[in-house]
């Protein structure tokens, strides 16, 4: 069916959207502007505080001077002012045509708010979960404090293992969500082969995760979005330095550097590589592979006038991995660079903005080593006996993204529209079995993928709120034009406060995505090549959530409970045929025939993900913290006519975080994660393989993904002490990662498991390889 044919399906939706405008326009009233400024108890201005109106849709944020202006009909209104780290304030404001004064709002700090891992600071988005760096500081870090390592503590988010930092949102694949930085798209912001994220938490204000309902103006992804937001100046300069096991970092947040321009600059660089290299050169093992990384982020935010502001963002990551055991191999290097510009404009009821993002991710590796053990190679030796490797990785993935958006809001309704484009140009080349191992095992030994894609998109969204019940309804549609076809993605969100402290929300989405990686990456892989399938992947998502915040003495203890049920149907999930694995590829590194141009032979299958999540957290002003989440979800797809679990399917996931003050400014924290093992392929048969003059077992795999690897369990404990001295806040911390030394394999190896089970007396190997051992670490940071 031609894609344009879909327009008929959603003509009713568009009609309904358009109908919102005239209906509500008739209720327009005479308006006036209410002005105010938000300050902390110390008198500092609070920027980017959200100002909303109870019972109405009007909202705005404070600018760099901490002040706001919001248009309201003449009358009395209750304004709600929120900012992460502060207790919300509600004030009565009178809107008059001749309002003389400026309101002054003082926010009290909320120690219980930032300490908890899950913060619902943006209450206007019911399906958004937020993590703050303050909360990250409570988690025992895996070497480095890392936002991506904290997200699996949230309900519905899974991470494969300790050595793979990619995330699975709501049962989706790891390439089904987008990561953005201040609204700019990123491609692979990870360090050390995706073990950890490439962000210094000191530079972040918060991390928002959107899974169950995706606003139409966001990047279209079938599983959601992880949005990182950088810190903004709060009236005075702030500086921070950190020293961890792996790296050293520094962050400066300077307000009004050039006139009205606030500057945030942060940089981080590893030093462990130099230490390990030195140890290796001094007689240590030549097998040590030394990771080296650095990242930097600079933002310059300028308030040109009360209406106009802009932000320039520069982001850079770079990794190099030295193969110290080889003299001929060039180090693998990969990284990402982003230049982003955003301009915002506010005028009365109008909000508008423009964004331009230039992103480039590259990978380069050249390994040409030839160390043949000639003269002693037997006729049936394994190929592993030869040391000859010839591999090349040369990847260049460029992404230019731009968007214009505008919003007009009244008290009971709001409309927003946006247009944008995403132009991507990929030039990826690889050669050699070693190269495919470093990228994706499913790639052929040689391939060259050159492709461009232009996605033009437009979105329209209308929101209403009922005066009596406070029911908020949002209806929107996103249209994307790709290669002459147009795809429409309607979305709806209804949120209703059924009681004083209980809010129910229902989201219904259709989503499209226009790129894919060839398969799930393994541990140790670099930035994966991204391909543009012939047709988009799409999914229908339905989610229902309930959030309960019991009333009580919020001065002492705050409790929050949330639950959600979601279902997702991937109508077109691009997958490779099960037979397309490296096992079946020719065992030669010198391909013959035509130039090795290659695109994945995707087939499109139907997939399902359903789940139930429950989360709670309790925090008190005395420093107690208790948080937990349980996720029950299944993720399956139908390949070759058989419904199987996906490789990332983990039915049960349980997380917990407990913190308690020990006195004398010491804090104790314990974090635990348990989840089911991933779906794996069992060993169906053991036969033999001739090897030189002997025979070794050959394990024949059975039905794909019908068995399950051992479960994952990890408990981390940490203590930290913070104190103020010399006008600075000092924090020292000590952590014990995997304190119980659980044997968590990172890549299940059925062959190892079979070999173990066949050995007389058995052995303790459960088939997992390279799991994280007990790992102590120390850290120190100073903020001034």
């Amino acid at each position, binding site marked *: 069916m031609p894609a344009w044919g879909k327009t008929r399906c959603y003509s009713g939706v568009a009609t309904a959207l358009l109908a919102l405008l005239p209906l509500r326009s008739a209720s327009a009233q005479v308006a006036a502007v209410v002005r105010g400024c938000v300050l902390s108890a110390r008198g500092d201005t609070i920027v980017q505080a959200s100002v909303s109106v109870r019972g109405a849709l009007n909202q705005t944020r404070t600018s760099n001077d901490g002040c706001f202006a919001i248009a309201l009909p003449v009358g009395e209104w209750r304004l709600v002012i929120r900012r992460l780290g502060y207790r919300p304030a509600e004030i009565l404001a009178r809107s008059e045509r001749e309002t003389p004064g400026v309101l002054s709002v003082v926010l009290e700090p909320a120690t219980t708010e930032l300490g908890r891992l899950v913060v619902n600071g943006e209450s206007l988005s019911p399906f958004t979960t937020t993590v703050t760096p303050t909360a990250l500081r409570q988690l025992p870090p895996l070497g480095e404090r890392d936002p991506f390592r904290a997200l699996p503590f949230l309900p519905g988010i899974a991470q494969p293992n300790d050595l793979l930092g990619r995330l699975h949102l709501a049962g989706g694949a790891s390439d089904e969500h987008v990561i953005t930085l201040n609204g700019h798209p990123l491609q692979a912001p990870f360090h050390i082969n995706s073990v950890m994220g490439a962000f210094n938490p000191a530079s972040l204000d918060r991390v928002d995760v959107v899974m169950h309902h995706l606003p139409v103006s966001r990047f279209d992804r079938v599983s959601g979005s992880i949005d990182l937001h950088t810190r903004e100046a709060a009236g005075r300069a702030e500086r921070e330095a950190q020293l961890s096991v792996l790296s050293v970092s520094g962050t400066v947040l300077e307000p009004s550097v050039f006139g009205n321009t606030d500057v945030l600059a942060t940089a981080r660089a590893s030093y462990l590589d130099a230490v390990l290299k030195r140890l290796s050169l001094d007689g240590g093992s030549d097998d040590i592979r030394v990771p080296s990384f650095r990242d930097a982020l600079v933002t310059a935010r300028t308030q040109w006038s009360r209406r106009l502001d802009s932000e320039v963002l520069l982001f850079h990551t770079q990794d190099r991995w030295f193969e110290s055991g080889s003299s001929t191999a060039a180090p693998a290097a990969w990284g990402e660079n982003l230049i982003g510009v955003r301009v915002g404009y506010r005028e009365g009821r109008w909000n508008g903005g423009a964004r331009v993002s230039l992103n480039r991710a590259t990978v380069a590796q050249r390994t040409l080593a030839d160390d043949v053990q000639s003269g002693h*190679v037997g006729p049936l030796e394994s190929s592993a006996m*030869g040391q000859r490797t010839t591999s090349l990785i040369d990847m260049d993935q460029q992404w230019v993204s731009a968007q214009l958006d505008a919003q007009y809001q009244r008290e009971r309704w709001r409309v927003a529209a946006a247009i944008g484009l995403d132009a991507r140009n990929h030039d990826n080349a690889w050669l050699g079995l070693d190269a495919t191992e470093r990228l994706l095992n499913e790639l052929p030994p040689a391939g060259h993928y050159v492709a461009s894609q232009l996605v033009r998109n437009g979105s329209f969204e209308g929101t209403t709120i009922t005066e009596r019940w406070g029911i908020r309804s949002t209806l929107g549609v996103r249209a994307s034009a790709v290669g002459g076809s147009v795809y429409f993605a309607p979305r709806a969100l209804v949120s209703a406060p059924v009681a004083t402290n209980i809010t129910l929300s229902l989201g219904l989405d259709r989503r499209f995505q226009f790129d894919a990686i060839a398969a799930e990456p393994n541990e140790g892989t670099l930035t994966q090549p991204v391909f543009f399938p012939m047709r988009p992947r799409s999914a229908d998502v339905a989610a229902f959530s309930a959030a309960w915040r019991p009333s009580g003495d919020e001065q002492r203890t705050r409790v929050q409970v949330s639950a959600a049920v979601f279902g997702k149907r991937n109508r077109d999930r691009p997958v490779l045929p099960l037979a397309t694995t490296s096992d079946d590829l020719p065992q030669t590194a010198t391909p013959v025939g035509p130039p090795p141009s290659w695109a994945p032979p995707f087939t499109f299958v139907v997939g399902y993900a359903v789940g*139930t999540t429950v989360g709670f957290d309790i925090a008190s002003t005395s420093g107690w913290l208790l948080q937990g989440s349980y996720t029950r979800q299944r993720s399956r797809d139908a390949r070759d006519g058989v419904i199987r679990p996906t490789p990332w399917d983990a039915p049960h996931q349980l997380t917990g975080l407990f913190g308690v003050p020990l006195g004398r400014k010491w804090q104790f924290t314990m974090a635990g994660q348990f989840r089911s093992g991933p779906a794996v392929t069992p060993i169906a048969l053991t036969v*033999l393989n*001739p090897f030189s003059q002997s025979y070794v077992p050959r394990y024949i795999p059975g039905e794909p993904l019908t068995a399950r690897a051992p479960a994952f369990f990890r408990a981390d404990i940490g203590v930290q002490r913070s104190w103020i001295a010399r006008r600075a806040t000092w924090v020292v911390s000590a952590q014990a990662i995997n304190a119980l030394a659980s044997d968590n394999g990172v890549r299940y190896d059925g062959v190892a498991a079979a070999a173990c089970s066949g050995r007389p007396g058995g052995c303790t190997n459960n088939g997992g390889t390279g799991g994280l051992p007990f790992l102590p670490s120390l850290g120190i940071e100073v903020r001034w």
Partner: protein
Amino acid sequence: MTSLMCKAPARMRRQLSAFCFFFAACACGCEPSAPLIAESDELMVYVVLESSPSDFAPQPITAVVARSATPAVEFLSAHVFSMRRASDGRLFDWREQPTISIGIGQLSGNYVLAEALSDVGALGRDSLMPGDRYDLWVETRGRTITGSVTLPGRPVLRLHRGVELDTIMWAPVAGAAAYRTPDGRLSADTMWIGNRQSAGTRYFVTAVDPQLAQYLRSPRLAQSGVAGSLGLFGGQVTVSLKVPPDGAASAASSGSASATHLTEESAATSSHLQNEAAFHRQILLSSRCLATAGLLERGGSKAEREAGVKRESICLASVKGDSHSLQLWSKGGVYGPL
């Protein structure tokens, strides 16, 4: 249950319903998973015949008759284990031997082929000849396992001694589906390039028959060349080439920086390499190709660089069948055949 629900207070009913809903949602996803290691019980027979050079002291040729009682392997004593040469029907001298564990996970075979003609006239290992066909007949546990294999021809190796590289080439031989190169890889190519080795080093190249090649190339294959059981009946022919002394090489090369030497084992020139100049050019280009790719630090001439041989390029040396090609491949395009 229904009446109980009706009598319960409304609040309790709501809570009970919510619990039931949550429990049902959880239970819906429950399903038993398969065991990680499935149990199996299958007959297996493995025989790989090999003809190797006379001056090479090979290990004995062994065979396996066993039962795959996954995860352990149980060796079996065959009621009949016979192998005949198809051309004249003569029997080979296979004998049962005790099995031993060679290393972790490595086992010896439980049948061994005699090295030479036995007293009773049965053939030994030295009677395995390239190009001959052999038939296998095994009876055990009431089952009959049969198979047939033809040993491939004997490759003739040519050695080129470069300044920093050794190149070995050979012509395709009948009955070979793949070749095991000196670095142990299984390849369809008939050329191999490696670092220059010192004089006296011996290179081995093995021609592999289709049944063994298929088995080695497909790690998920459980049967190739046998009928009636799992297992393998394959054959291979190994030849070796000894690197001559450097002095002799210099004398033979007549001052050339990259000369071609014919060894005593590759005296006959292959028919597909009539044009010696073209072959020589290929070797030069191959060396330069690898050099520009970073393996060696020899730089190309200005003309070569202008021809598009960039540092980012990489060499695809491909020699298959009677056609030889050498491609320099980079993201700027494919340059070749050269």
